[in-house]
């Protein structure tokens, strides 16, 4: 029974384009989870069609909620994924998310044009990432510890700067629609998320920098010995994580028209969960943009289904945990076999 025939193991018939694409897909670390995601979506859609009144998955309102929720974790997960593939972690992305939103709102309140507010917020995100990277690499401390430290420091800074008050952010309408406007049945932020996923895919699969990112996470010593600049590459990955966390903070703040200091708590672990579910190795060196997309989408689909069938809110985290453990086991089993 274990003698399963995975198409990727069969010799590729030359000229068969579909076969080539399929075997490339099977090689993707996210292949299993994408298949699961497709099955889950199919089940939800069928359920929604069969019981449109009891299971309102396909209702306009629900679709809107779902498509709005995915990018928040999705943006962060894209950055965290690049960093994890480079072999490092960032636990401070949730705090960066909040600080970026606060920065943007505070600058805007002070009369700074919104474009500069956004640039300041992104710059803060990148700066936090680079500081994390610099400390990690210069003093050879695990990034897990360094960023745990910066997370706590940033949370302190946020509370010191803003107390517990919520800060409003009501930008001009054009800015609002650029980041969060409705486009057909999609929202702008979902398109931005897709854009970043595609950018990450181009980076990781098609670009030299992505090749270096994979190598430093896969085997740092070998990458260094072969001639990859480990410091530069990892700094890039830390910067990307900070940038994407800030991006998420900016979009979320714009969407809800305010930012509160406790916002973004727990996002760091959810982002790591999304990445792990999407097949990105905790040990680094393995992962794909497709995985981030699938992981983030699956987490929110599961949450969404639970809400629709009326599960109490405190079950949600438990179910994410369940999906996480199941995904890790599934990926592990598949990797050993394939």
């Amino acid at each position: 029974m274990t003698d399963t025939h995975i198409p990727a193991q069969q010799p590729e018939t030359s000229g068969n384009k579909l076969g080539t694409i399929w075997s490339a897909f099977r090689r993707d670390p996210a292949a299993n989870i994408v298949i699961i995601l497709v099955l889950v979506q199919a089940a939800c859609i069928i359920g929604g069609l069969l019981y449109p009144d009891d299971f309102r998955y396909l209702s306009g309102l629900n679709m809107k909620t779902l498509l709005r929720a995915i990018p928040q974790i999705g943006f962060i997960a894209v950055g965290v994924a690049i960093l994890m593939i480079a072999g490092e972690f960032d636990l401070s992305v949730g705090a960066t998310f909040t600080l970026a939103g606060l920065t943007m709102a505070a600058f805007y309140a002070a009369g700074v044009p919104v474009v500069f507010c956004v640039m300041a917020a992104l710059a803060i995100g990148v700066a936090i990432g680079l500081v994390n990277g610099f400390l990690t690499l210069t003093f050879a401390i695990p990034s897990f510890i360094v960023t745990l430290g910066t997370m706590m420091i940033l949370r302190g800074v946020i509370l010191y700067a803003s107390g517990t008050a919520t800060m409003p952010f009501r930008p001009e309408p054009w800015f609002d629609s650029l980041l969060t406007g409705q486009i057909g049945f999609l929202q702008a932020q979902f398109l931005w998320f897709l854009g970043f996923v595609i950018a990450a895919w181009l980076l990781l699969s098609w670009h030299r920098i992505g090749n270096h990112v994979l190598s430093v996470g896969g085997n740092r010593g070998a990458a260094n010995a072969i001639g990859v600049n480990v410091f530069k590459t990892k700094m890039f990955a830390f910067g990307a994580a900070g940038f994407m966390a800030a991006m998420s903070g900016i979009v979320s703040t714009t969407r809800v028209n305010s930012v509160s200091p406790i916002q973004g708590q727990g996002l760091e672990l959810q982002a790591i969960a999304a990445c792990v579910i999407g097949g990105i190795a905790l040990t680094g060196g393995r992962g794909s943009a497709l995985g981030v997309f699938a992981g983030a989408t699956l987490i929110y689909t599961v949450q969404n289904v639970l809400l629709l069938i009326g599960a109490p809110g405190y079950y949600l985290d438990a179910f994410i945990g369940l999906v996480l453990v199941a995904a890790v086991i599934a990926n592990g089993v598949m990797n050993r076999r394939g």
Partner: protein
Amino acid sequence: MPLDTNTAPLLNLRGIGKTYGRTEALSDVDLHVNQNEVLGLLGDNGAGKSTLIKILSGVVDRTTGDIEADGTPTDIRNRQDSAKLGIETIYQDIALVGPMSIWRNMYLARELCNRFGFLRRREMRDTTVDILRKGVEITGVDDPEAEVGGLSGGQMQAVAIARAVHFRSKILLLDEPTSALSVRETENVLKYMVDLREEGVSSVFVTHNLYHAFQVCDRFVVMAHGRKIADVTKADTTIEELTKLIVAH
């Protein structure tokens, strides 16, 4: 002076030392590599051979000593420096990235890109197939997309050799390159060193197999406990003498 550079050694190291905390891995080693030569670097386990190789390839930072290339003072502090000098290395611990494909390993840090840094994947994949076919003729490896981590020890070593040989330019450093290879593949590698010498590429060959060393090397440097204890040409020594030197220390 310009005349001198023709005869100056490709590489000349003086007073090389390396300490790891309290361990003195190398002390006061002089070593030169001539043009058109295969140099055997011999010595017991822990003698300091790999440390010396890694200093030459820029992976280990020396504590003391000076380096000259073609008669002019130079420095090797990282892999980029050694690449500029035309040094290519096959490391004892192989140095491949397990989760990456063969072609990505083959071209790592030397990717063929367009001017925006995007990879010319098809070209690299196709060339990798060629390199694998011609090179050391690795058995059972023909898919450039195969993950290196799934190869056998010998196949990995063959990939590392194929990469170094493909990108060789002036000096090839081989740190026990044949430890996992079959007899036939080992013979291929030995023959390579001789062929490359004819092409003008010098090699530094680290091995515990004195018969292999004697088969291809023009000169031998013997190390013991981090020091150089002998530097003799092939004409001036025998396998027996080299064996005695290595065992005695």
